[in-house]
Each structure stands twice: as C-alpha cells, then as structure tokens.
C-alpha cells in the first residue's frame, strides 16, 4: 500500500464543501442550514440519535437526495470544484463510479447479491474500463485479502456469507477503484461485538494507509472515537456542535452533546 503523506504540503483546499444545506420533507425538516468542509485525508463523523437528520444529510451530500436549499461542491480531479446538483446526471454517475464509495449499513444494499464475491469487485473495475479478465481477478483477489476474506470463497455468492464477511466484501467493492471520498452509513451497525471490533480495526488501517477522506454516520460514539478525526453533532436536523473528535467527546459544550456523551456506558 502507498505510504501516508503529510497533509499540509499537498492540500490546496477542501475535497468537499457543503454550504447551507437544507432538506424539507414537505413541512418536516430533514436537515437545516448545515455547512462544513472535508479535506483530503480527513475522516468526519456525523453523530446524533435516531431522527437527528444524519442519514438525510448523508444522502444529500452523496448525491442520492436533492436538497431543498444549499450546495454541495466536490473537487474533481481535473475541473476543480463542481456543484454536484448542477452536474448532468451522467457526470454525477461517473463521479460516483470513479471517485466515490458508499458503504451501507446493510451489505445487501451495497452488494450485488446474485453475483459472486469476485464478481462484485470485478464489476467495479469493469465500470472504470478494466477489461482483462486475469488482471481483474488478480486485483479482486488482492482486495479480498486486504479485507481478510477467505480467498477460497471468491466464487461463492454473497448470500452464503456471514454478516461480517458481507460487510468486508462491501468495503472491498467500494475501495477497489481507489475512491477519493467514501461515505459510510453505520458500517458496523448490524454486526455483533467481536465482528464489529475486527471490522473497525480493518477500517482504521485502510483509512489511514489509503489516506481516504471519509464521511461516516454513526450513533455509536466509540466507533466515532476510533475512526473520526472530527465530529459533527446533530439534533433535530441541525448541527449543534463540531470539533476535534476527542474534544467533542471529552469536553462537550452543547447541552445535547453533553447528554449524548453522558448517556453512553463507555464512550
């Protein structure tokens, strides 16, 4: 894997810029007036209880749900910052294939269940132009190894895998084309504790070694502490506090953040 590079010399601006993002469902607020940047190599955690607007926000910034107001800008490889919702649908889809990954809480939402493990990864490579079967299979194998997946099962269907294996496969599928930004929605949510620990450790290593920018939504503050550099605390669709992860968790300022932190057994 590539060596980690220092953040400062190469940074020439944020990778993603969210400005005054607002989403109404009719008269109901999904999220309101949310603004933040994500810089290259930065892992941003969005925390808050169920119904706080985390998932709405994630959908809006990952081009899955058009916001009512506000903009989401992404730094493309060649054309600088572009406003996602002003791009034609085809260009947006192209970005999603080449530059983004999305790890869903339920692996079934992110995997092709009728395609083998190897095929799930190969499909992503073919989507960005890989055609050589041998190369695709080798790369798929490398990635399966990276996520500690039993290579003997490369030709098996995802439905025959455990939840933890499915989740690792989904992660491999999302990282194989070298995305610059990865969205994660409760990536360890449905797994039991021992599997969760293993997956967290894996995610931590991958994120740091690949120097990924990640936006991770979680209600689990322990997950947030392990993975995120920076936190955004949401309540009722609004951001109530932001800051360095350990600062928000060890010295929360807003009454709601204090409540959130003090309600956890072991934050």
């Amino acid at each position: 894997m590539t060596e980690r590079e220092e953040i400062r010399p190469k940074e020439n601006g944020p990778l993603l810029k969210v400005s005054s993002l607002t989403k109404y469902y009719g008269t109901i607020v999904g999220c309101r007036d949310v603004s933040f940047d994500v810089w290259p190599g930065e892992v941003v955690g969005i925390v808050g209880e169920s119904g706080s607007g985390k998932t709405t926000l994630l959908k809006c910034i990952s081009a899955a749900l058009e916001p009512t107001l506000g903009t989401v800008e992404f730094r493309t490889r060649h054309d600088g910052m572009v406003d996602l919702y002003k791009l034609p649908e085809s260009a947006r889809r192209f970005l999603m294939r080449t530059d983004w990954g999305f790890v869903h809480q339920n692996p079934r939402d992110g995997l092709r269940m009728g395609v083998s493990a190897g095929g799930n990864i190969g499909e992503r490579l073919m989507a960005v132009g890989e055609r050589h079967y041998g190369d695709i299979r080798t790369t798929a194998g490398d990635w399966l190894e990276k996520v500690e997946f039993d290579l003997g099962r490369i030709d098996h269907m995802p439905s025959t895998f455990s939840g933890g294996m499915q989740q690792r496969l989904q992660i491999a599928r999302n990282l194989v084309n070298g995305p610059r930004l990865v969205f994660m929605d409760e990536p360890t949510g449905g797994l039991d504790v021992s599997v969760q620990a293993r997956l967290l450790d894996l995610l931590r290593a991958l994120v740091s070694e690949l120097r990924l920018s990640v936006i991770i939504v979680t209600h689990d503050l322990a997950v947030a502490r392990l993975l995120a550099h920076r936190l955004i605390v949401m309540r009722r669709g609004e951001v109530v506090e932001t800051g360095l992860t350990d600062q928000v968790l060890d010295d929360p300022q807003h009454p709601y953040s204090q409540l959130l932190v003090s309600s956890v057994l072991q934050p």
Partner: protein
Amino acid sequence: MNTIPVLQVRNLSKTFVLHTQGGVSLPVLAETSMTADAGECVALVGPSGAGKSTLLRCIYGNYRIDDGEVLIDDGIEVVDIGKAEPRRIIELRRRTVGYVSQFLRVVPRVTTLDVVSEPLRMIGVKRDEAEERAATLLARLRIPERLWALPPATFSGGEQQRVNVARGLVVSTPLLLLDEPTASLDAENRDTVVEIIRETVAAGTAVVGIFHDVEVREAVATRFVDLQPLTKAAA
C-alpha cells in the same frame, strides 16, 4: 538561539458548565500563564483539583479553551490551539506535541507493537523501521517480547502504563506533555522512565508534566509551576 518558547500559555481560563447537572459552573483555570522552553522540564505542582490535568489537556487541544491563548511553535509558525482547525491540531499532535495520558486507551485487536509503532508510521516512517524503534523502546521498558504481538487490553496496569509511555515517546516531539507517567510503576521501571524523560529533555524537548511522586519530580524537573485551586466563586 531561538528566543520564542516552544509553549506559551497566556491568561488561559477554563470553566466547565455541566448542562446535565442543572447548569452547574465549575471554574478550574483563571488567567493562568506559563511557558516551556526547549530543553527544560516544567513540573506542574499543586493540590488535587488545582487544574493541572486540565491545563495539560487544554495545551493538547483535548479541552476547549474559553479564554486566553495556548501558543505552540512548530518550527514553521506559532499556532494558537484555541483557534486552530482540527486538522491543524491533528498535524501538531503527529510531529510537534506528544502526550502521555494517565491511562492507555486500548483499541480492540491492535497488537502492542502496532500500538507503539503507529505514531511513527503516521509520520511516514516505514513499517520495518517503525517496528524496530518500537521494539527497542518496549524492550527498554521491560515489556516481555512474548507480549508484543498481543493487544494490551489484558495487560496489568503497570504494563499498560509502560506501553502508553512507549507510544507517547516513540516520536520525539519539540513539546511533550506527561500526566503522571510513572503512576502505577514499580521502582525499577519508574527509574527507567525517569532516565528516558531526562534524555528527552537533554535532547532539547520542552516537557510539561504532572509528577505526584516527589522523587520522580525532583529527578526530572528543571522548574516548577505552582497551580492553586480557584476559590469557589461562581455557582
């Protein structure tokens, strides 16, 4: 010679407001000032509750600063911790400010060797070299080699504390913050940690520490800063 201290704390104030406890306000630091120069070890002294750990955590950026400044010179520029962006603080923590907390925060499944070598890998040191340097330090702190491949979660308090010291000291930083680094150590290991701290100071690091053990404090400190609890004024 560089005339700017590595660390300058100016009129730092810190009050905890506990919203879940009816909004109780606990002032801990009021207009505290201090500095630390390269090659000195400043011991924070004062009774429990005087705000020694709070001061260290404010310097590290772990606690927010209500008022005043914490200025750290990273050799390129002077950074005001209270106003710096999170990513700037993270970068400072990688290369400029080391911190040894009272307790090791363990990550499930991560081996001791990885825990200790990680800070080196984060600044681009190759895995082999990082592990070699981590191993040298672990050996010096008498962590048996058979434990290196295990996560430190099941280790004794003293072993965990030594792993913590190793992780905090493996990268040499211009500023090092120590919160009771010898608290749960036996005499022999305590002496080793003292020796390592003295070498670190001699090599030019500015150290700010809390050392309850008087012998340790006398052995490492070159200067003392006295903190006293604030009189309970606010409510």
